Structures are given as C-alpha cells and as structure tokens.
C-alpha cells in the first residue's frame, strides 16, 4: 500500500471514528426526516417545536430514551434478551465499513481510499452481514418469552430469510456485468457516459428490473412498510420488540435505520453509479464532490423509502410470503438468465 504500518493504523482509526459519528448522526436525522416527510404526506407539520423546523427532535428523543425506565421483565431468558439488541446494532453498523463513498484522497502526502477496508469480496461480506442480522430478530422474539414476541420474531425472521434470496439474486445481474465483487471496481465500471449524455449507471444499462426487485427485497429485509407486519402495532402489539424498553428498544430502532442506510448505499453503488457525477472546480472541490454526489443519491433512496412508507398499506403475512417466493424470486432468476445470455453473446 505504500504506507507504514503505524500510519495505516492511525488513518484507519480516524476513518472508523468519522464513519461511526457520521452514521449515528445520519440515523438520528433520518428519524427526523421520516417524521417530517410522513407528516407532510398526511397533511400535518411533523415535529416543528424543538429547535428550528424541529431539527433538535432527534436529540430530544435520544434524551427521552436514556431517561426512560430500563425494565427487564422477570420471565425473559436474560442472556439472549440482553444480547439480541446488541447483535442487531453491531451488525447494522459493521456493514458501513465496506461501503466506499469516494475516490482516493491525498491529504498531506498520505493517500487513502474513502472506505474503511477495501476487500475483494466486499459485496459477499455485506450479504453475509445481512444474513446474520436475522439472528438479532429471531433471538429477541424467542428470549422475550411472550407469545406476541415469539410470533413476531418468527414471522420477521421467515420474511427476512425469504427475501434475502431475491436480494442476492437481483445483485447477480450487476455482478455478471461487472465481473467483480469488489465494490470499488463495480462503481468504476459505471463511470463515463453513453450516447453523450446518459451516464453509464447500471440502472440505465439494462438492470432496471433488477433495481425494482432489489427495491422490493430491500423493503422486506429492513422490515419497512409495506412489509412491516412483524412489527405493526395493530397486529402483534409490537412484534419482536414488545418487551423491550428505553435504550434496548432504541438500539433496535437505530439498527433498523442503519440497515436502511446500508441498503440505500448498496443500491447507490451498484445501480446508481456510486459517486460519479459532474466534477468541476478546484482540486479540493474535486475531492469533496464525489462524496456529495454519493450522499445525494443515498438521500434520494431514503426519501423514496419514507415516501413509500407514507403512501402504501401493509401486506398481510401470507401475501407477503407469496410475493417473495412466487413473484420476486422468479423475476430475479429470469433477470440473471437474460443478463448472462446477453453478456455471453456480446463476448
């Protein structure tokens, strides 16, 4: 790499700290964004009293969660009850370490990529972390020792496991076109333009069906409307996090938004061209602009998430499972077949 080992460790620690701070702030402010946007969709204001435009609302929410009584019901299975929210949050925050947000930058002679680690199989590791996050939900539901939690936990984990397949398969089309699992290489293949002004993003190069399959599967993976039956209040009290209070519940909450941000980042990297966008201005601006384009695209994706949450009703559980297995999975397989056929013909 050209860096001495101590410089490498220092740079990595700085990147980890920045990534964690940015991620936690992004989680807090996506809760604000959600309440504002859903409020406006429902023809009301949303939070607007705590600070200008309600911008200090996440801070107030955080303080509320810290000061709430931390209740551990006596009949829960304590080790797993305490470990499940920790597992959810840790896994949700770990996947941000593989997401590149910009080009290589050179600060004072130290050149480093804008991601915490650059692994050749980055996409597979993110899929692995998504697979492991089923455990947080399943163990929370089971250890709470209550019928609503158990049913909610089982339903949520069955839903997550079913839609993982459609999620992975929808990404295979992009992988066939790019020939690599390295996230940075996949983005680099989407640079430039075709037909003079349409950018060479994967979504315009034929993966539009895969994008919509990915969108639907991502909604189900993160347990968001219209697939949020396992945590709907009118159905199962609160599903797998019924018995959790204060900071443990806040950890599940944060894990859900962190998963949303991760899924949005993967969609941006694989379908929307990552950090490629118009570059102009002086050199320091050219280092910052890719990050700005990346954040803008992730923000658009999260806005789409929140918009759909405010608009669509939720699926019933059997409709949900039928949709995953009978509609999304065959479409994803057909996408893989067509993509591989076209790529093989072109060679």
């Amino acid at each position, binding site marked *: 790499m050209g860096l001495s080992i101590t410089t490498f460790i220092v740079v990595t620690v700085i990147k980890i700290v920045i990534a964690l701070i940015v991620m936690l702030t992004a989680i807090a402010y996506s809760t604000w964004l959600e309440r504002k946007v859903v409020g406006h969709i429902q023809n009301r204001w949303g939070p607007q009293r705590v600070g200008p435009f309600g911008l200090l609302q996440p801070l107030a929410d955080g303080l509320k969660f810290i000061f709430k009584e931390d209740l551990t019901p006596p009949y829960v299975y304590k080790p*797993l009850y305490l470990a499940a929210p920790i597992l959810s949050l840790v896994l949700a925050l770990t996947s941000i370490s593989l997401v590149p947000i910009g080009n290589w930058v050179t600060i004072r002679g130290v050149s480093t990529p804008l991601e915490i680690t650059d*692994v*050749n*199989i980055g996409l*597979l*590791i993110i*899929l*692995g972390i998504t*697979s*492991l996050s*089923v*455990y947080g939900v*399943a*163990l929370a*539901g*089971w250890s709470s020792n209550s019928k609503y939690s*158990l*049913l909610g*936990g*089982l*339903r949520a*984990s*069955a839903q997550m*496991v079913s839609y993982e397949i459609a999620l992975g398969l929808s990404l295979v089309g992009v992988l066939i076109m790019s*020939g690599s*699992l390295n996230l940075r290489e996949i983005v680099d293949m989407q640079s430039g333009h075709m037909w003079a002004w349409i950018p060479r993003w994967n979504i315009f190069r034929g993966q539009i069906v895969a994008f919509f399959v990915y969108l639907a599967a991502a909604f189900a993976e993160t347990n968001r409307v219209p697939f949020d039956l396992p945590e709907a209040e009118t159905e199962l009290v609160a599903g797998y996090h019924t018995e959790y209070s204060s900071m443990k519940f806040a950890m599940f909450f944060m894990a859900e938004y962190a998963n949303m941000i991760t899924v949005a980042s993967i969609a941006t990297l694989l379908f929307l061209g990552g950090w490629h966008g118009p570059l102009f201005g002086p050199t320091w601006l050219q280092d910052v602009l890719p990050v700005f384009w990346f954040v803008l695209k992730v923000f658009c994706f999260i806005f789409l998430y929140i918009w759909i949450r405010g608009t669509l009703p939720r699926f019933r*559980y*059997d409709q949900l499972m039928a949709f995953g297995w009978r509609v999304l999975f065959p479409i994803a397989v057909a996408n893989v077949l067509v993509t591989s056929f076209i790529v093989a013909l072109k060679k």
Partner: protein
Amino acid sequence: MLQLVLFFVFGIIAVGAAVNLLAQRHPINSALSLIVVMASLATLFLLMGAEFLAAIQVIVYAGAIMVLFVFVIMLLNAGVEDRTPGSRVAMLLGIPAVVLLAGSVAWTLVARNPYPVGVNLTGGFVGSPSAIAELLFRDFLLPFEVTSILILIAIMGAVVLASPAGTTAGTGSPEQPPAKAEE
C-alpha cells in the same frame, strides 16, 4: 507472527465454543455456540487464503442452515435435556474412546504428511471467486448440476415430511396455519 497469534486466538475460540456446545443443556445455547464455531472457522479459512469459502461459510452455514436450526428449536420448544443413565454410560466410555480417535486421526494426518508446509498469507495462493468459478464450471460441472438436483429433492422431501399429518402437501387445502387464529 501475527498469523500465529490470529490462528491461536480463533482456534481457541473454536474449541471453546465446541466444548460449550457439549456442555450446555438447552439446545438454543448449543446452536449459538455452533454459530460461534462456524464464524471462527470462517476466519481460519480467511487466514488460509480461502476468501470465497469464508464468505460462503458465513452466508450459507451460519446465516441459513443455523437459522433453520434455531427456527426448529424455537418452534418445537422441547426444553432442557435431562441426564439419563444412557448418557452417563456414554460419557464414561465415550470420552476415552474419542480421545483415542482424535489422537489417532491427528497423528496420522501430521506424521504421515509427506510434504508439510507453512501457511503464509503472502504466498499468493488465494481462492478468489473467479478462480473457484473456473474450476466449478469447467472441471466440476457435472457434480455442480447434480447438487442442484440434490437440493431440489431435499426441498421436496422437507416440505412433504414437515407438513402436518392428514394433509397432502401441495394439493388440497392445507390446515389453517396457527398464526391466523389471532385475526
């Protein structure tokens, strides 16, 4: 040096979790210990350069097969297991026999190895996905297709075996799933 330290750390975690699998009385704790074993084995695969296998171990084994185990343990909810006379006899005879077995296997693998080498990650031998895919789709294409048929048979078998008695899986009207009774 760092590789030796990493090997010992993850090796001890793997053996400790395996011992915990045997020592725990509730199957859910054993399942979680097995997940820890699989995760540490994935790290050991990475130490030997098998990066694709490490990712597949986490996604397939720890993320799908063990989820199936955890599901079944939660659904059946059979509780802790009790010590029967059979298990005491098995422990008395079994532990020396297993020590003998593991010792002879280890001795054969190590002493009869004609070409022992050291695992060094800078050796350049990496099991990247493209290299494994070359082998899988050229030299081993027939076993690959046969395993896909095997999975199809396993799916059909599991659906038929696990469906409630008195219904024919896939035909006729299935019983009401219990979760619907709440609505």
